[in-house]
């Protein structure tokens, strides 16, 4: 699991227990809830909506899912990490 996110939260002595608890509880409210505008939400939160949309797509078959996976690898995602990934 990517830990860059976690490090922001857990960090060092900068964030003693109570502050972390407070942030986690706040996150539970602002990130798991709230109004959602389906359709145009940036990539970072789109993951949540992708899952909704994805589920509709993926319920059909595992083969379809494999195709989706393959397609995404070939798609031009807006990041340089894709190009640098070895064995592609």
């Amino acid at each position, binding site marked *: 699991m990517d830990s860059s*996110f976690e490090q922001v*939260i857990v960090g060092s002595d900068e964030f003693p227990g109570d502050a972390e608890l407070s942030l*986690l*509880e706040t996150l539970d409210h602002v990130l798991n809830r709230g109004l959602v505008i389906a359709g145009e939400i940036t990539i970072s939160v789109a993951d949540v909506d992708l*899952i909704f949309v994805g589920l509709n797509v*993926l319920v059909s078959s*595992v083969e379809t899912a494999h195709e989706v996976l393959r397609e995404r690898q070939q798609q031009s*995602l807006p990041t340089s990490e894709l190009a640098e990934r070895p064995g592609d």
Partner: protein
Amino acid sequence: MKQSPENPRSAEPEIETSHAEEFVEQLRCVTDTLPSRINVDSHSVEQGLAKLVLTLIEFIRRLLEKQAIRRMEGGDLSPEQIEDLGLALMKLEAKLLELKGQFGLEDEDLNIDLGPVGRLI
């Protein structure tokens, strides 16, 4: 609605508990299952989709098990049918374990939150 210092709605939310560490541990699990929204690298997208697919299969597998047990209890299956059904489901469980292993996913990874519907498993 005037802004005033006595207005309780301007107060910062208080967070109260006698068991901070326990809750931190539990709430961390919640944030751990968030997909990595900051990075859009292909590995994490693939991982996310694999998780999704396997979660669905896991869900269906459990439904099938429950259904088989219900039929077994209902008495309308012969001993041979029960045995065959059980063996097939055993194999399915083993297969899924293998798949999870291939993607490096644990049971906790597959328990995604579907918002209003709750957790999948």
